[in-house]
């Protein structure tokens, strides 16, 4: 038995887009301080799961529930989920031409602060806060004056995601392939950023293909997804085994069950 209440409970979740079923009964519970890794081939439903938890309007929940801090959030708007502490790190962060990164970060940080009954920050105070957080991801101040993600390299986009996570201080962060497209140095920066931001009160879900991020951030649980379902759950050794044997090994596993 766990001592505290779970942060996130996904219960037998099925979902579809354009009448096409993508998730077929996923269950997952995350307690404070836990790090979960979800692995699986492209198209297995990992990214969809993360988008549905964040409330993407293109997906319909056809069955099951998502609970955040004990409350059902199935029909909550994406911004309300974010304000209450759910963070999604995008696999492909969206470029928003014309919208200044600084302004975007400030508006979103204040939205979260307002929810937490914290004082909203004016431009000046916010600059101070950002400066401090930029350190975590080793980003240059110049990034703030550019449009959101526009013209950023793959690594810069991912670091911008972690910067947002640092500013929003979520209860749970779902990081969708945050490691893809990063070189070794950038991966270290991102990983150490994640470790700095997370603590015993937060939960993390890492969605990844590779072991290398998990070398940096050791997960408590590893889940393997296939065809919209979690087909196996284990500890960090499962990821190592997967790295060694490849996903074909899990194909056999499906047959076994």
């Amino acid at each position: 038995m766990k001592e505290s209440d779970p942060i996130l409970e996904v219960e037998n979740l099925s979902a579809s887009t354009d009448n096409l079923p993508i998730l077929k009964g996923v269950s997952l519970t995350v307690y404070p301080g836990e790090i979960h890794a979800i692995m699986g081939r492209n198209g297995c439903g990992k990214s969809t799961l993360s988008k549905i938890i964040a409330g993407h309007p293109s997906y319909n929940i056809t069955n099951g529930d998502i609970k955040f801090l004990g409350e059902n959030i199935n029909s909550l708007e994406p911004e309300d989920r974010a304000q209450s502490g759910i963070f999604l790190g995008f696999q492909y962060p969206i470029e928003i031409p014309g919208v200044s990164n600084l302004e975007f970060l400030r508006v979103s940080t204040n939205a979260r602060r307002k929810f937490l009954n914290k004082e909203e920050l004016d431009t000046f105070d916010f600059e101070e806060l950002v400066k401090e957080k930029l350190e975590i991801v080793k980003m240059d101040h110049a990034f703030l004056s550019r449009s959101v993600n526009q013209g950023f390299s793959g690594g810069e986009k991912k670091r911008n995601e972690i910067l947002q996570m640092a500013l929003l201080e979520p209860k749970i962060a779902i990081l969708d392939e945050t490691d893809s497209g990063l070189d070794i140095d950038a991966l270290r920066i991102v990983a150490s950023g994640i470790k700095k931001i997370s603590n015993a009160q937060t939960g993390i879900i890492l969605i990844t293909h590779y072991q290398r991020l998990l070398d940096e951030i050791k997960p408590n649980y590893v889940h393997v997804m296939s065809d919209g379902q979690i087909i196996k759950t284990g500890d960090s050794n499962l990821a190592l085994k997967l790295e060694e044997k490849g996903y074909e090994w899990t194909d056999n596993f499906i047959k076994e069950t």
Partner: protein
Amino acid sequence: MEIIEKIKTNKSIDNLTEIQKICLNKLQSSPLPNPKSEQWRLSNKSKFSNFLNYSVNEKDPIFDIPFPKTSQSTIRLVIGDNCQTNFIEENFSIKQISEDKLVKYIKEQISYFDQNENWSDLLNLSLNCTKNILGLKINGSEIPPIEIFSHASSNSLNAKTLVIFLEKNCDIDLLQVNLGKDNSSLSQSTFLCLEENSSINHGVVSYGENKSNLLNSLNVIQQNNSEYNLGSLHFKFNYARFEIRIKQSKGNAKTNIKGMQITKKDEQISTFTKIDFHGPNGFLDQINKSLADDKSHAIFEGSIIVPKIAQKTDASQLSRNLLLSNLAQIDTKPQLEIIADDVKCKHGATISQLNEEELFYMRTRGITLTEASKLQLSSYFQEIISFIPVSQDRWDLLDKLLNEN
């Protein structure tokens, strides 16, 4: 014929000027534009006839300029007011064009007019008496920014005409503001002539109140090596047409246009542009944005004409449109007519909503849908507004727009 009678019997005009006579004569054969012509086919008929419903009023009441003048150096003129228009300084001069020169120039322009295409100008010039025509000749350097206001007062139809000759090597910032009052119709015709090596940053900001109407026609002639930059914004009109005709008379000129129109309620605002390259090495970069909400209708028709003589023309025209409501509609038709073969011409058009993925991204960061839309809209507006000269510092158009939308 009704309109012609109206002009002729207008009591405030004592005797018709020569130009009025010529224009009335032209209108005699076909007093109204052909509703089936390309230029007028989408024009809302009842709104158009409403434009002509008001009577011609020559007595303008006192006019309040919507924003304060902060810099002393800015030159501010109101067409129709007996304003001081002769500035002769050390570096530059802005002089009123003599009447006979003005008449000669306008007459020449009229001789090229097409009944449908230039109907707005014909109407304007047939309505207009000398008082409401401002003709300026500008030369020199370090010319301060110029602001020119046109307005129509309530329950009346007003016509204002502006003619500017920009002499060689001149360089100006010109902001033109057209304001419509409650239940009014404004006919504004502008003629700009850019001589060699001259350049204008031209802003045109037009907005009305309840039931304002506008026919805004802009005719630009560009000589060699001139540069014409236009930033325009039209909103809050029951019915508005913005017609832009630019002729690079010998090619070798640069034109940049960034325009936007915003329609709400049941408004109809349209923009027509015709860019004529009459010589080689011409350059055009144009973007026109529309935003249509409620039951409104936004229209863009652009044409780029590249005859054989206009080799090495580089022209690009983009029409971007946001349709925000189920009952609103958008029409766009960017067209190319090309004969010269060694040219780079492209155009594009899109009609869509606000980008859903961008909205979702912002929402996952806790930004509300309304706020996220506002951020997107402001970036959509910003590209155009930042191109409008003079206004930037003290007249926050962006705030005005965002609060309206």
